[in-house]
């Protein structure tokens, strides 16, 4: 193996955390001008490996060569100086500052006077070079997630990064933004940059990468194979270590009585803008109803309004013929409304509290966990242990803080809590986002099981494939309005509705 055309060469890297070996003798190399995908389930050690490369962690053993020279990074700065830049999943930007200011942050040039116009020009030039279009004078808080990501990339390029590590870059992006990102990545590799693309999404890896390295539980199962030589199923197998069923089995269930009935719902979002503009929909017993739409078209506000977390300005919400419009959240919970929030760490769980404290969040004041004024800790612990068993939550003990759990396990904690409350109506917002193949399958099966046991489920997702697989019917939302309802899974119609064409108009044009 000639190491000279390798920009990066990592040899038998081992990194352990208490109780786990995150990386076990991992080899990884990166050639100039390629996109090398690092594929693996959550907790497989992908981010750890790249954090070692980016100077955030120090490996216990193994060696790293950059352009053939051995290095030993003590800090991210040293890595950047060596041309290694990492774009993390969570952006590290200052919201109140402009794009240029964020890019210049921490650099020695400019020294005292900011000379912004001059640097604005520099940023624009660099942005044009790679097709990373963003207004250098815009404040970061005004930018969309996709634009913020571009700023992060520019930040790294500006610091002279030749190797760009992208940690799950598509997790936060809308489909159109993903394709823009891919264009950018291609233009960067054409100009000689090399890219590590961390992902657990097979189809994206197939689309963008030249080579793939697959990690499974900290070990390499396949090192640097050419993407075009493998199939999606092969990769899935390498990643999970067993065959993955891509189609979950969906039994026929006769839909029953209407459980959720929403009429003319209006609400405003946090910025005071009208985000729901007269939404009407219904969900019946034993039915999964999908809500499709591009992110930010009122889905989150709808979920919150249904759960009682957001004030409804007009319209009504009834669950099993009980009016729950603008009623306290707790009343909704008692009426069997359950919400699986999109934001698992900021809404769904309390990160520093134990697994037990997190699973009793909705029934800590109900018998048998509560008696009188007390929370009976033995009952709470039993309950948590039962759920840990039943939902296969992988955690050292039920006293462990949930911040130490992986994304998939955290979602299991939430699902265990929500499903065990035997909800009559469940709102699931992006329940599989950021999860790996195995976990996605688990979550989808749980939702289907809920459907079979007669619950009414509103599934809000940006993954069309998931919506089509699970839903009996699909509504499409656009700018706070329902564009129409589809029960035959016509993907073209859904696509048109997602961009703002009402169903009647589509059908009228179709007849013409």
């Amino acid at each position, binding site marked *: 193996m000639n190491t000279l055309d390798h920009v990066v060469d990592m040899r038998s890297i081992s990194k352990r955390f*208490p109780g786990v070996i995150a990386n076990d003798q991992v080899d990884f190399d990166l050639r100039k001008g390629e996109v090398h995908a690092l594929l693996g389930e959550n907790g497989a050690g992908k981010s750890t490996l790249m954090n070692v490369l980016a100077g955030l962690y120090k490996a216990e053993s193994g060696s790293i060569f950059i352009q053939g020279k051995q*290095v*030993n990074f003590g*800090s991210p700065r*040293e890595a950047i100086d*060596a041309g290694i830049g990492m774009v993390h999943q969570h952006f590290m930007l200052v919201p109140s500052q402009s794009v240029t200011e964020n890019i210049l942050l921490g650099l020695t040039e400019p020294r005292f006077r900011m000379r912004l116009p001059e640097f604005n020009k520099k940023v624009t030039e660099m942005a044009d070079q790679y097709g990373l279009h963003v207004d250098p004078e815009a404040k970061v808080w005004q930018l969309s997630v996709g634009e913020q990501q571009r700023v992060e990339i520019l930040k790294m390029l500006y610091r002279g990064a030749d190797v760009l590590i992208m940690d799950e870059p598509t997790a936060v992006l809308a489909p159109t933004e993903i394709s823009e990102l891919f264009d950018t990545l291609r233009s960067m590799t054409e100009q000689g940059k090399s890219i590590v693309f961390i992902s657990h999404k097979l189809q994206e890896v197939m689309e963008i990468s030249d080579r793939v390295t697959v990690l499974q539980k900290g070990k390499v199962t396949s090192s640097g194979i050419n993407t075009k030589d493998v199939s999606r199923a092969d990769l899935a197998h390498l990643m999970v270590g067993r065959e993955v069923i891509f189609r979950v089995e969906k039994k026929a269930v006769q839909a029953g009585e209407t459980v959720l009935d929403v009429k003319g719902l209006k609400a405003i979002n946090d910025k005071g803008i009208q985000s729901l503009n007269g939404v009407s929909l219904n969900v019946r017993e034993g039915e999964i109803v999908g809500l499709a739409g591009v992110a930010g078209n009122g889905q989150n506000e709808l979920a919150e309004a249904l*759960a009682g977390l957001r004030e409804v300005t007009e319209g009504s919400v009834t669950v099993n013929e009980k009016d729950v419009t603008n009623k306290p959240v707790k009343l*909704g919970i008692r009426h069997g409304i359950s919400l699986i929030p999109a934001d698992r760490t900021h809404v769904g*769980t309390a990160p520093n509290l134990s697994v037990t404290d997190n699973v009793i969040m909705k029934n800590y*004041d109900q018998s048998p966990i509560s008696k009188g004024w007390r929370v009976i800790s033995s009952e709470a612990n039993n309950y948590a242990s039962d759920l840990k068993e039943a939902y296969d939550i992988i955690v050292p003990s039920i006293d462990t803080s949930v911040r130490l759990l992986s994304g998939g396990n955290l979602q299991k904690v939430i699902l265990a809590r929500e499903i065990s409350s035997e909800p009559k109506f469940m709102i699931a917002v992006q329940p599989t986002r950021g999860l790996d193949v195995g976990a996605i399958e688990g979550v989808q099966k749980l939702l289907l099981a809920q459907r079979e046991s007669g619950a009414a489920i509103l599934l809000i997702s940006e993954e069309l494939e998931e919506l089509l697989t699970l839903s009996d019917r699909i509504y499409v939302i656009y700018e706070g309005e329902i564009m129409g309802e589809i029960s035959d899974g016509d993907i073209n119609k859904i696509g048109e509705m997602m961009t703002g064409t009402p169903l009647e108009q589509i059908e009228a044009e179709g007849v013409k």
Partner: protein
Amino acid sequence: MADISSKSASGWKFPFRIKIENRVDNPPKWLSPVLSLTAVVVALLIGALVIWLGGGKPWAAYTHIAKYSLGSVGVLSDTMVKAIPLMLVGLACSIAFRMKLWNIGAEGQFYLGAFGASLVVLLPILPMEAPKWQFILVTALFGMILGAAWGFIPGFLKARYNVNEIISTLMMNYIAIEWNNYFIYGVWSESGFQMSRMFQKNAWLPRLSDLAKRWPFFGGLTTHFGLVFAVLAAIILWLILSKSKWGYEIRLIGDNPRAAEYAGISIKKNIILVMMVSGALAGLAGSSEIMGVVHRFQGAISPGYGYTGIIIAWLAKLNPLAVILTSILFGALILAGREVQPAGIPTLIQGVIMVALIASDFFYRNRVSITRQVED
């Protein structure tokens, strides 16, 4: 690249290196108290250094403090007198801090509690010759009500208008002191002096020395009934925080208010409630200090108890039962420290303890190990 090779080029390398990593597992249970203890020891060592630099004898100073605060029953009792308000104020801070509600206003709530107790005697609410047990209960109650009212104001402002409670509680302290001064200088001034008349004896909280007639052992001991209040309050607060539904709600809001809201727990209601309970405890401290020690309404009744309570709460890791112990430590420091130097060193040590405590948190969050330097 901060060049590793240039380091090795210089030839000699330090044979060990310190490795710092974020903890990715739950730290062991013993770690937290051990760290707090270490922080106190480190603070005392720093204090010793300062005493030595100032030309004093650290060992002599510390043995003096220990001897004259814990060395005999008499001084121990005096230490308890200092510790009682600290216990109650420390508890007040603990419950608020559990919810990440930064009540810096225990000082003001303390003053208002003193005012409330004085009302009972001076307004008067109870007749001069009312039985002692009535005074014990009613002064405590009024101290708590007035303290709670003082806590309610910033609580309400926070819940309704999202006013930063750190600023509002701090400012309310100054208002409380001046509020009391108005009554001390004006309304209840005794022939122009800046204090009220001495309260009649049956209004005083009972003291250990009251038992001297039957058991001479207690003669001259000034520890008063406030200790019963403090210990009771600590036990009740411990039950609330660790065993009750409300304690769970406080814990959940403290860790993630959005998750609490999502679980159907009203944050606004709890902000106001917790601020009121916190204020009530600080108020009880003020009331028992007036009725048990000062025995008249006057200014300057607190050498910063409300602020020391913050340190005590942190040192106790917000555990109500541990507050009792840390308060005794600080009571000793305040009592005997004053003999070493009226101001200066003892307050300095308090401050250094706080800094050392905050710094010790680093070791709680990170794992630090010293390893042999390996050749790269």
